[in-house]
């Protein structure tokens, strides 16, 4: 091998080795991923086997359609009054339970167009205090405050989330049953009940197993 080439080869090699270091090539998304706006019923790139936004949207949409189809609501002479009772979570996933009923209520209110009315029991304390202020004459009243006008419930709407989970070397599997029911406040009869079920499974990266 000629001398210049013999002495130059390692130099070139060294330069190539060092040169390869001055780059961030191979690093995926070094500057991050732009914020992506998604539909709430769309599966995002951050996912688990738990209860997610798209599940909540799908379930409440289905329940709202189902409730509006029953004769007690669709053929009622006067819009029945419904009180929402907290959902019971019997899964392994801590969830914001109110969000189910809030979305169900907003769906029903927007789709039912007055077919059903909801009683705001969350505000009862505030409403009672206001009524007392009116009765004592501390604030003005547009109607006789001594007449009881707080509405009584015709129906109670509530739900329950039940789950079953499995974890093995093959992965994680979660089944969640979402059930909702409408109970007649006078007779205690369940006049409507429906459910939806979602099962998910996956296996995490080996780096976390």
């Amino acid at each position: 091998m000629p001398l210049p080439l013999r002495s130059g080869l390692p130099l070139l090699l060294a330069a190539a080795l060092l040169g390869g270091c001055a780059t961030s090539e191979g690093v995926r998304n070094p500057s991050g991923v732009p914020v992506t706006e998604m539909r709430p019923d769309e599966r995002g790139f951050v996912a688990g086997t738990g209860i997610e936004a798209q599940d909540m949207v799908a379930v409440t949409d289905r329940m709202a359609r189902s409730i509006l189809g029953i004769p007690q609501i669709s053929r009622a002479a006067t819009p029945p009054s419904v009180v929402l009772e907290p959902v019971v979570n019997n899964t392994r996933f801590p969830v914001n339970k109110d969000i189910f009923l809030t979305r169900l209520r907003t769906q029903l209110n927007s789709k039912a167009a007055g077919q059903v009315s909801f009683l705001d029991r969350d505000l009862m304390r505030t409403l009672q205090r206001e009524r007392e202020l009116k009765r004592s004459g501390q604030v003005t009243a547009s109607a006789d405050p001594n007449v009881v006008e707080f509405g009584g419930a015709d129906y109670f709407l509530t739900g329950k989330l039940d789950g079953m989970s499995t974890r093995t070397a093959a992965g994680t599997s979660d089944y969640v049953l979402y059930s909702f029911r409408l109970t007649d406040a006078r007779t205690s009869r369940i006049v409507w009940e429906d459910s939806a079920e979602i099962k998910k499974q996956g296996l995490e990266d080996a780096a976390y197993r």
Partner: protein
Amino acid sequence: MRPTVRPRAARGVAGLSLPLFALLTAAAGLPGCATAPDEPRAAVRGEAGVPERDRVLHACRAAATALRTGDYPGAKARLDDALARLGGLILDDAAAARARSLFAAEDTKVFLGEPYERVMAYYYRGILYWRDGEPDNARACFRSGQFNDAGAQDERFSSDYVLLEYLEGLATAKLQGDGTDALARARALAGERFRLPDYSPGANVLIFAEYGYGPRKVAAGRYGEQLRFQVQDSPSRSARLVLHEGRTVVPLPAYDDLGFQATTRGGRVMDHILGRKAVFKAATDAAADVALAGSVIAADQAHRREQRGKDGGGSEAAAVGLGVLGVLGKVVSSATRPEADIRQWDNLPQRLSFAAVRLPPGEHAGRLEFLDREGRVLAARTRPVFLRVAPGDRDTVLFFSELPR
């Protein structure tokens, strides 16, 4: 005729030939390449920006501190932040793939902790849910905690937290359900070690206590490729709450030991990956040693031939070639990163305890005592406590920790 003596190759520092000098320079320069582009940093409340991959770790540590200092909203916010990550499945993740690769250490992945650490995040969040009057969400957390402990190598140590099972049943009983199955499972897990009390429907005060320092992660093996746990057994073996000048004594035995939990999980899939990395590192290092030794011998041979006036070109080329291979081998070996991830949630307790009692609403003063193995009070650890039991149906949830922060 005098043999033609070729001019010797240009000499570098300390008599090294220029090619070898260049290679050594490159090898010396390579470690400087270990810098990566700026890591994404996360804003964690109360802390300067932390690497995004350590976000869960910092959130968990801060949550434990917040819980012990009575900053319950702060603890909730941090645990929710951590659980948003812990609850998902990490798939097709660049950092995780890098952590599995030869040339990146395991701690380049997003920290999700070992099972006992994940369990504790759920356990603490469960306590806070219960404190907020949501026993069903608390139960969900205890279930998730137990779920995170599933899949141990030895099935006997899978989902074996006594307290999580007991609390799941208690929450179910509080929700008018049947908690007897969970109680039976908890008792089976406890075995002969202690007798778990029946659920008391009238109990309105839930006391969670913890004592001792939790396990420590250490890296063992030639290259630190083995994840191991050190457990320094705390002298506090149990505790008790003494109220009303000694008229009420609430035992707080240790139902679970995180040291036991950490050391009974068995191997991880990642341990096999790290083991393979270590084998590769050792093999390339050994091959490089052989190549460099061969290079020295060939260089010496070339030198002798030149001194004898013979052409040493062939030997010199061999020396350079073996030198290149040797240096590359050393570079590859030193760039291989089999070290186990020893980032750890370092303010966890060792022992977890619980009691449910009935106390009249109002204020109660007393002391929390820690007991040694023989049941003697560790007087220096005794601390006064003051608690307020709320009226109404909602349970009063109290949390006591021997750890300061």
